[in-house]
């Protein structure tokens, strides 16, 4: 009865031959049933949705481009990228951890069990990789960066690799994910309230971990300041590192060149890369 206002193809191929001729169709538009969507603290929510085979194939570092319902009388026109926080293959579930900062994320916060989450994904190369032979890794995240770093930490744990998780936050209440991270490794909270999140202190903590041989690889997300620090120490000690980067997006798939970030390779060559297509995970030593 109601007119179709926005076109959208069926999310699963409907016709014979309706499938990519060049590569597998690895991403899809899907409406994923919301199972829960709870506040973690004053600013962050945790959403669990029912996945599909394609969406559940998401790997650490990949993201979904989400079209939330509008939180007000206006419309939302662009999707919002959200890293995958957890993939629970056994139960066919996907989880997101997100901070409510604007219309999109506030719209996402209005979803209730029984509603659908409108996603496109999984997207991005999702190239979080634990280097061959690493025994211990350090993940350093601030804010929602912690959501992005969760899957790689979990993967490390599954492979029997030690994880030290440095969780930076404004206050103890906002240092989320401690539960999750304490299941996969050692948690260190770095807070603004007690000054432990200051760069000098984080540097001390990191140097100590390096000294203790607890830092065979670095992973970071969510703070330019901490990223720069990890990059410096990684370079100094030849520790390979990866960073998950953010940029405003439109397509999330590669064609639009909206989500550019600047990089510089070891030989001094500068270039622009697309976060959605070339990343969102990049070599920490090349990131700026």
């Amino acid at each position, binding site marked *: 009865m109601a*007119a*179709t*206002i*926005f*076109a*959208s*193809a*069926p*999310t699963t*191929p409907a016709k014979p*031959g*309706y*499938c*990519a*001729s*060049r*590569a597998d*169709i*690895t*991403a*899809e*538009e899907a409406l994923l049933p919301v199972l829960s969507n709870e506040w973690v603290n004053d600013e962050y929510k945790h959403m669990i949705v029912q996945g599909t085979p394609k969406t559940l194939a998401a790997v650490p570092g990949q993201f979904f481009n989400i*079209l939330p319902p509008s939180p007000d009388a*206006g*419309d*939302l*026109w*662009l*999707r919002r990228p959200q890293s995958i926080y957890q993939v629970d293959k056994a139960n066919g579930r996907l989880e997101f951890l997100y901070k409510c900062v604007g219309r999109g994320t506030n719209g996402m916060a209005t979803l209730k069990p029984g509603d659908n989450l409108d996603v*496109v994904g999984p*997207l991005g190369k999702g190239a979080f990789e634990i280097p061959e032979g690493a025994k211990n890794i350090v993940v350093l995240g601030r804010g929602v960066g912690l959501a992005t770093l969760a899957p790689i930490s979990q993967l490390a744990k599954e492979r029997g690799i030690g994880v030290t998780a440095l969780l930076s936050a404004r206050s103890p209440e906002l240092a989320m994910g401690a539960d999750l991270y304490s299941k996969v490794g050692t948690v260190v909270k770095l807070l603004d309230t007690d000054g432990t999140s200051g760069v000098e202190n984080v540097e001390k903590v990191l140097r100590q971990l390096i000294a203790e041989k607890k830092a065979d690889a670095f992973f970071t997300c969510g703070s330019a300041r901490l990223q720069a620090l990890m990059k410096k120490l990684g370079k100094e000690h030849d520790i390979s590192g990866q960073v998950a980067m953010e*940029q*405003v997006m*439109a*397509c*999330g*798939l*590669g*064609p*639009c*060149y*909206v989500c*550019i970030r600047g990089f510089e390779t070891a030989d001094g060559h500068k270039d*622009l890369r697309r976060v959605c*297509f070339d990343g969102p995970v990049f070599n920490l030593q090349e990131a700026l």
Partner: protein
Amino acid sequence: MTDMSVKVGALTLANPVMPASGSFSVDLAKVMDLNRLGALVAKTVSREYRTGNPAPRVAELETGMINSIGLPTKGIKYFQEHQVPEFREFTPPLIASISAEDAEDFANMARDVSVPGVSAIEINISCPTRAPGGGNFALHEDHTYKVVKGIREATDLPIWAKLSPNAGDVTAVAQAAEAAGANALTVANTILGLKINIDSFKPAIGNKFGGISGPGTKPIILRMVYQCSKAVKIPVIGCGGIVKAEDVIEYMLAGATAVQVGYMTFRNPTAMIAMIDGVDAWCEKKGFKKVSDLTGAMIEEKLMDTFTSATMPIGG
């Protein structure tokens, strides 16, 4: 089964729906079967590498989006050597899109992009944030005639001139493009706009001005498609704010032979396929055997006298 094919001049497309330049690359094969599209339209390419405009490159509007990407490109050589072969892995005809800052370079670009595998050249003479003499030739009929003329002499491929909705007299520009030898018109590029962030007091995108796309532009561009299709004999390709099958139909009734979809691919990457299926189903329901019969099929009656119109039943 509707005959969904349309003819854009000498070029036959399997259906009238294709992507708009800048919203499409073969990377979309990750979400859909690109062989279902009417054509593949490449991102605009210029001679040399260009970084494009500063970030942020897009912002959301109340009724769509504004962008200023600034035509970043890896240059014509990369296009010939890497992108054309990639596009050729798919069956729909490839439409190259080119840009240049003067008429001479435009002609040379047209020549250089006329390589096997390219079926037509869309000339982006309407980049909204450029000057009429420097990439936005389509703001005026004289600039348009000159640049199209030079391009016409440089290539035998069909030329699709992409017009600007910011021109004062779009039909004059359309006629100039036709007179200079364009084989089709794409109507239109984005509308020049501004959004200010009232928290920061700064323009919402890095380049200050940007091009508006999405549903807010449809009634404006549709009017231009109607005006242009009445003013020229060459086919018109409609482009602006198309988000559903009904919009494709509305554009065709207004005079479009085919359409291009930009913004909507960002929202729903598979939307073009839904539109093709939707138009097909609509034609079947309405008894149209050929989708091409829709082109220009808007019914025009003499304007009714106001008093008489005010005695008619609603919708009658």
